[in-house]
């Protein structure tokens, strides 16, 4: 799932400074699940903005709306009426959502209200960890299902480095596990330790053509 976090208020205030009628648009999928851009967060940001602007004696009128997935044109179309009424939109969706909105309403500035940070999973409620770097050339078959590209601080394909701490922790951050120690243990459990002997050539990240485009086979 895509993980995002709310942008600092300063930035949001700066983006919206010239406008008096704004729509705060939430998205009901990934950013709701990661507590960054769902209906609840929309209400909080709207309230915070109103407070900030009224303290500056520069009142702002704010509309709130959320759609199920902001990265779908059809779903974004549902809030068309609200968008036409405002001067600008601040979207709490991921980058894909912001761009979909932007494309749908080209005459309106659509600003990002969150920073889209990574693809991850929850470790517990309220804490998300990065799991996938979307590199486009999945490596997990060789590493026991643990991605060293994002979970190793150095992104090493051939690990561990010499700096693993006691207890299998990372030398850069003692709170984090060394991905390569995790990989070793996982492969050990599966009786596939021989994979550790392989040498993997540097990954050609340019294999991923930007912008990415995927055509499903039978579509």
């Amino acid at each position, binding site marked *: 799932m895509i993980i995002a976090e709310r942008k*600092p*208020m300063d930035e949001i*205030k700066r983006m919206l400074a010239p406008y008096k009628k704004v729509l705060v648009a939430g998205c009901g999928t990934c950013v709701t699940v990661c507590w960054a851009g769902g209906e*609840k967060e929309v209400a909080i940001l709207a*309230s*915070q903005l*109103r*407070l900030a602007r009224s303290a500056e004696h520069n009142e702002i009128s704010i509309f709130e709306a959320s759609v199920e997935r902001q990265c779908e044109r059809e779903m974004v179309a549902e809030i068309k009426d609200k968008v036409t009424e405002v001067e600008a939109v601040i979207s709490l969706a991921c980058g894909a959502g912001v761009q979909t909105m932007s494309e749908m309403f080209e005459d309106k500035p659509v600003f990002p209200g969150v920073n889209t940070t990574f693809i991850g999973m929850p470790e517990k409620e309220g804490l998300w960890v990065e799991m996938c770097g979307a590199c486009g050339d999945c490596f997990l078959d060789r590493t026991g299902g643990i991605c060293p590209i994002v979970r190793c601080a150095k992104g090493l394909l051939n690990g561990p480095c010499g700096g693993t701490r006691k207890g299998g922790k990372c030398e850069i951050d003692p709170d984090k596990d060394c991905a390569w120690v995790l990989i070793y243990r996982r492969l050990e459990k599966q009786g596939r330790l021989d994979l550790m002997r392989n040498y993997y050539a540097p990954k050609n990240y340019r294999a991923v053509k930007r912008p990415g485009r995927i055509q499903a086979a039978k579509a």
Partner: protein
Amino acid sequence: MNNCIVAFCCEHSAYPAADLAGKLKLHYPENLRIIRVPCAGRVDLIHILKAFEKGAAAVMVMGCEGGACHHMTGNTRTKERVKYCNLLLREIEADGRLVAMFNLSPNAPHKFVGAVNEITKRIKESGR
């Protein structure tokens, strides 16, 4: 609501403490408005922020003493939430100390009044 103090009071602790303050005829400022909630854990950021939008001078969230929450984690979670609300206020250059969490037991009317006086002091200090 010009310059009212909104107090969200847990029905297991702060609310009965406020009742006891009444029974003992302790006095606190008249601008206090108590809203009864089943647990401090029910109080959400939007409730606090809306109170400020409506012109509240300060918002108090009052729950059970640490470790004595009827729902185990209600008061600790809300403490975190109030801390975050502090940040949200500071982000918009408001005085973060005007939202505060207080923990007290139902038999602590003096502590209740003390908390109200404390927040009143903070309001004065912040110049409202």
